[in-house]
């Protein structure tokens, strides 16, 4: 198991958001968490990463209990999060953003890292000297993923990578992630709303509602998936 989450509870201030989430991510898999706004998907990723401190429960990464480690330690261990809203450094150049991705490695292997990212996202190479804040939405998303790749992660977590993107672009991004999984041996854990594109590639699906996992299983085995899709999008 790449990642095991057990009875995870977390929240902000006095407000509890996660009410005991159990989740397993298999090595090399593409796991997707679905759910409406406010279900706690983002909080789940933030708690796994340690951006918010879990209240209770455990997060085990590759057999090591990492529940209370700070994010920078987790990045060093191979976990990386592409956060909601991308969280780029808008005043820094594209390349500076990418270089910072290798921070946890003490900036080792920056050259190879950049090579990889520019191979995957040729657009970024064209814009390497441009400030990140001036990129288009799609390019920013590429940069966010590229920056995450710079830390050479083994587990890549993504928070709504399709947010704000045209459906076509969103689908492309997801295809690309799937390719990365296949080529680079990444494990992917993704939180999404754009169900259709996500489901096509997922190995395992969890559906969250109000801070709890309500349905889980492989996409084709979860009987209600179609219903969910219809329910959310009316299509």
């Amino acid at each position, binding site marked *: 198991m790449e990642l095991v989450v057990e009875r995870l509870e977390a929240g902000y*201030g*006095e*407000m509890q958001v996660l009410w005991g989430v159990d989740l397993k991510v298999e090595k090399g898999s593409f796991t997707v968490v679905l*759910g*409406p*706004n*406010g*279900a706690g998907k983002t909080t789940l990723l933030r708690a796994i990463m340690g951006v918010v401190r879990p209240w209770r429960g455990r997060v085990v990464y590759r057999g090591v209990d990492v529940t209370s480690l700070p994010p920078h330690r987790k990045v060093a261990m191979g976990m990386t999060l592409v956060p909601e809203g991308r969280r780029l450094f808008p005043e820094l150049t594209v390349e500076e953003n990418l270089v910072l991705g290798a921070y946890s490695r003490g900036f080792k292997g920056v050259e190879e890292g950049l090579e990889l990212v520019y191979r995957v996202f040729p657009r970024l190479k064209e814009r390497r000297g441009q400030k990140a804040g001036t990129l288009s939405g799609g390019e920013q998303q590429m940069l966010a993923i590229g920056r995450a790749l710079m830390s050479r992660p083994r587990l890549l977590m993504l928070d709504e990578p399709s947010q*704000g*993107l*045209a*459906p*076509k672009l969103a*689908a492309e991004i997801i295809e690309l992630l799937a390719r990365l999984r296949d080529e680079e041996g990444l494990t992917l854990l993704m939180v999404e*709303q754009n169900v*259709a*594109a996500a489901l096509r590639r997922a190995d395992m699906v969890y559906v969250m*509602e*109000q801070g709890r996992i309500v349905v889980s299983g492989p996409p084709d085995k979860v009987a209600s998936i179609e219903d969910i899709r219809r*329910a*959310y*999008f*009316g*299509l």
Partner: protein
Amino acid sequence: MAGPLLKVENVTKRFGGVVALDRVSISVDEGELVAIIGPNGSGKTTLFNVINGVYRPDEGRVYFRGVDVTDLPPYKRVEMGLARTFQIPRPWPGLTVRENVAVGAFFGRARARSVSEALEVADSVLDIVGLSGKADEVAARLTVVEKKLLELARALAMRPKLLLLDEIVAGMSPSDVEKVVDTIVRVRDEMGIAVVALVEHVIRAVRRAAERVIVLHQGRVIAEGAPDEVLSNPKVVEVYLGVTQ
């Protein structure tokens, strides 16, 4: 009152070189429930902000209740009966739910004359949206859906003539969507408020409630009419639903 409640006439709005709205004209009658749909970046939010006065259009005029409000600041329009909710709810986190709504009752068209009056209004509106049980809770502690309902209540407490709803059902679970849409329809029916809702994804909600749908694409109105008719319009399917289907 003669004429439509809201009339947007040939409005153009540019940001730098980008044309966000390109000669958009729409009108809304009293008590009507209109949905404006369109993909991200189609200009929906810009149109909203032109209507409520956050942006001033580069060209064109906006009329509300027969008055040219193009140059009026937002608060004046609110006093005339325009209320809105936010896509990402923004209640005042430190105030209680009741207090949040009471602020609404003080401003807008309602203009409560005393605190007790404002709180009365607040309680009655909270009843309508089904938040009475949380009245004494601090707003920060509500769930996302509850915050959206709170925003709706706050807007209603202003006794608006026209309610602008920005993505109110986005990302809600199906049961919540149903609940909220029912509430909106009920409010419209009981209070006679015209509603303009922005909707990006949740077409189901549009089908369920809207009487008229306006489709925006790249800053232009590309279709308008009854929901079923518009949603089956091939042009709309192409630009709006895109490659997904």
